[in-house]
């Protein structure tokens, strides 16, 4: 029973993050929401593995904690290359 | 190690395991040589396997030593043996035929990947046919599909990319539908082994999930088989794929899906679902008729030779489905024989087109005007295979049509109409084959068109081998009909 409050809180927060991700308005808001959603997922997985009595499944939470960062880096790289492309296209249009 | 007992698995792993090796070969022409030899080896395995099946009945192979339904089982009977012959045979001849053509289109740089993908298509199709497990079938379906996309995308024309993409989307939707169907059946029966499924479905056959599953599997496979009206991906995929690859794919890629369709509908569903017979007939007969009428009609108006043949395939698939839908041994024999014969004629036709394209650089009919004089041997083979497609006696095409029409006449009043439909479609086939013949022989070369000469001897030799195969199997029908009759009898064994 001791896990229910935190589980509820996590679930609600996940929902809130999704609302933010859907609403935007900017791309960065979405990234923020995704990142936040990711950390909540890690926590939820961790708590849930105790809730279900299988603490050995913390592996999942660990795996995701590690992988989450890659997604964010990829996003960052994406922004950077997009900036680059814009500049490039801009220069070509100017010519 | 007793090789004979391992033949079913060898059939799959020979091409499958060679593919990674081929993908690493960097010496020009070596990938092609390796792929051709492997494919030939697979054909030899298929021939031996067929011999064994003919001699000793169906073969079963338990993978990992686990007894089905707990482990995966390979199951090769007459029907699958015939399909294995088609697949490995078509692959071998197309490879042996296509070196020059493929070098021209695919290039040396990409060759290792291309030939590896080719072998994967062979392995995937063999797997689909040989496996006795519903989910394993899905895995091989995906191997062959993905590899097919690679083959098509290797063509130089940019439209090949769009064709690949459409095929990829629709192919995946089809495969996923199949997966849903298998999931629902699994949910109701708890097994994935086809034979086991057949037994267990009897208890739950009337429940909705099973009925819906039957629908999903049928639609999914129909998509894969390019069955009218789900054929949209097919003409373009055939048109823009590398020519020799088209000769291979057209001969067997849709056949595997049809094989599975027949397997599922006749052995898994038919015996245990009441009304299934009526549903199959009611559903497939109109579609089959529309397929061969519309497919042939569109082909008549098509100026791109490859697309014309693509639509003709839509029509031919219609015949096969009709054979399935009539649900009689005679009709099924016709359908199964047509699987083989259609492979024979289409691969010859597409090879001839590949020869033309190799020299003329185009497959548009106006560009090919007058090619009959410059390339008499190529066009000769084309005409021979075209006659087979029309269904002229003494060619392979006649045998299957003969059976189909007899089955129609047997079917009752509606059958007469169906037989009429088949004849109309044959007439349309006359029209489009004739269009090519006329352009080739009776029209002058257009001004400024490329100078033509006969295709290289290596290509011609294989082309004529297959073209003459059309005559051979039109006359000596022991092998094809023998297998088909057995297969039809087994499939309908306890069904009708």
């Amino acid at each position: 029973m001791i896990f229910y409050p935190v589980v509820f809180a996590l679930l609600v927060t996940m929902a809130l993050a999704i609302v933010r991700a859907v609403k935007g308005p900017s791309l960065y808001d979405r990234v923020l929401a995704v990142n936040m959603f990711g950390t909540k997922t890690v926590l939820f997985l961790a708590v849930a593995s105790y809730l279900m009595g299988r603490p050995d499944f913390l592996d999942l939470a660990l795996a995701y904690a590690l992988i989450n960062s890659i997604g964010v880096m990829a996003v960052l790289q994406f922004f950077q290359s997009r900036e680059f492309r814009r500049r490039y296209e801009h220069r070509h249009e100017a010519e | 190690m007793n090789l004979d007992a391992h033949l079913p698995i060898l059939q799959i792993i020979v091409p499958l395991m060679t593919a990674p090796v081929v993908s690493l070969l960097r010496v020009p022409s070596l990938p092609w040589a390796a792929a051709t030899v492997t494919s030939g080896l697979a054909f030899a395995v298929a021939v031996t396997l067929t011999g064994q099946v003919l001699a000793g009945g169906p073969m079963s192979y338990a993978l990992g030593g686990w007894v089905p339904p707990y482990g995966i089982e390979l199951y090769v009977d007459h029907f699958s043996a015939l399909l294995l012959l088609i697949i490995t045979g078509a692959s071998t001849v197309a490879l042996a035929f296509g070196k020059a053509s493929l070098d021209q289109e695919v290039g040396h740089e990409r060759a290792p990947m291309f030939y590896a993908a080719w072998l994967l298509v062979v392995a995937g199709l063999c797997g689909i046919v040989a496996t006795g497990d519903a989910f394993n079938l899905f895995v091989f379906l995906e191997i062959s599909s993905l590899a097919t996309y690679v083959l098509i995308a290797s063509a130089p024309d940019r439209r090949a990319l769009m064709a690949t993409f459409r095929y990829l989307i629709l192919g995946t939707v089809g495969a996923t539908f199949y997966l849903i169907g298998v999931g629902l059946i699994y949910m109701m029966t708890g097994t994935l082994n086809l034979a086991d499924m057949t037994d267990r479905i009897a208890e739950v056959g009337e429940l909705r999930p099973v009925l819906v599953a039957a629908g999903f599997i049928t639609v999914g496979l129909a998509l894969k088989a390019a069955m009218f009206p789900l054929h949209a991906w097919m003409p373009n995929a055939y048109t823009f794929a590398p020519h020799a690859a088209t000769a291979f794919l057209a001969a067997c890629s849709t056949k595997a899906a049809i094989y599975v369709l027949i397997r599922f509908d006749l052995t898994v569903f038919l015996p245990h679902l009441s009304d299934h017979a009526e549903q199959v007939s009611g559903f497939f007969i109109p579609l089959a008729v529309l397929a061969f009428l519309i497919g042939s009609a569109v082909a008549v108006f098509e100026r791109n030779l490859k697309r014309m043949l693509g639509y003709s395939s839509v029509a031919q698939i219609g015949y096969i489905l009709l054979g399935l839908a009539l649900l009689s041994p005679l009709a099924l024999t016709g359908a199964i024989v047509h699987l083989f014969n259609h492979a024979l004629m289409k691969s010859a036709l597409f090879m001839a087109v590949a020869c033309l394209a190799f020299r003329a650089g185009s497959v548009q009919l106006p560009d090919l005007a007058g090619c009959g004089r410059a390339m008499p041997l190529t066009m000769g083979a084309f005409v021979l295979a075209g006659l087979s497609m029309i269904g002229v006696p003494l060619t392979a095409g006649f045998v299957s049509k003969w059976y189909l029409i007899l089955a129609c006449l047997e079917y009752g009043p509606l059958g007469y109409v169906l037989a009429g439909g088949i004849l109309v479609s044959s007439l349309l086939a006359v029209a489009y084959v004739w269009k090519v013949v006329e352009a080739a022989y009776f029209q002058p070369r257009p001004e400024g068109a490329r100078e033509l000469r006969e295709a290289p001897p290596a290509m011609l030799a294989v082309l004529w081998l297959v073209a003459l195969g059309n005559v051979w199997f039109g006359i000596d029908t022991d092998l094809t009909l023998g297998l088909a009759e057995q297969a039809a009898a087994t499939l309908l064994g306890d069904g009708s």
Partner: protein
Amino acid sequence: MTLVFGVFLLTLLVIVAVAIVRSTNLFAAVMLSGIFSLLMAVNFFLLDAADVALTEAAVGAGVATVLFLSALALTAEHEQVRPGGAALQWLPLVVAFATGGLLIYATFQNPVIGDPNAPVHQHVAPWYLENTPELIDIPNVVTAVLGSFRGFDTLGEVFVVFTAGIGVLSILGLRHTLVEMTSAEIDARQRSLRHHLIPRVVGRGMVPFILLFALYVQFHGEYSPGGGFQAGAIAAAAIILYSLLEGDDRGRALVPEWLLQIMVASGALLFGGVGVVCMLLGGSFLDYSVLAEVPSEGQHLGLLLIELGVGITVSGVLLTVFHAFARRASR
């Protein structure tokens, strides 16, 4: 209670799916589909499918997002909005609703979720649960089924991945479209995230841990969720992270392409090879029992080797694919 959590999460899943389809910004759609995958993973976890959840998290949320973003960087970020284009299209809608409706119609005769008397739990599956301890002797039944009882499926799966790898290489790896760039731009481009100091330091620090974790997942897969596939994905993710931070060229220097291609092929060959060795030793294809004196030890050895093969091929292919996209971007 888990049921309620499940219902809640599933509802979110539907909402996210609708949002993905409705969004005209493709970047947003990709971000949302990352969330979609995570929600999926959590649901799988709640439904007792730990291995699947791990895979979905590694693949769907990790690798797939990276791939989609790489592709987006090379294509276009926004869907074009046409006059009337945003409106629902009727024919596809009817098709989709017919399909969905049919399925919902079917569900009412489905066994209830969790019903222990459902046919799925009566046939075949109990056999695995009963016999795994004796025949394979490992705790993770999923791994046992995956590697041994249905090892042939897994072989097929490896070859699917292999096909995708050579396919992407064949489609993208050749015929580069060279873009003229000034040297400064190339520099700015190639250095990637290197001038972001904090991410770089943190990221570089994490790479070894991720790799370590990948090894753990690889070799501990018989005892806990995981196995070759997940390990391969995680290891690939580590290298991808390195490439993102240090630039694609350095990533390629770390794991050169010829090595990748050999990995791709050799993993698949290793798996198949084990099967063939089993045949040579007198068993059926993939019958690991013949690999050692004691059948269950043979099974252990076999599983270890094939999982290794899976891991090598998967990581090789994912990296190949990533590099194929990234190199396109850097030209």
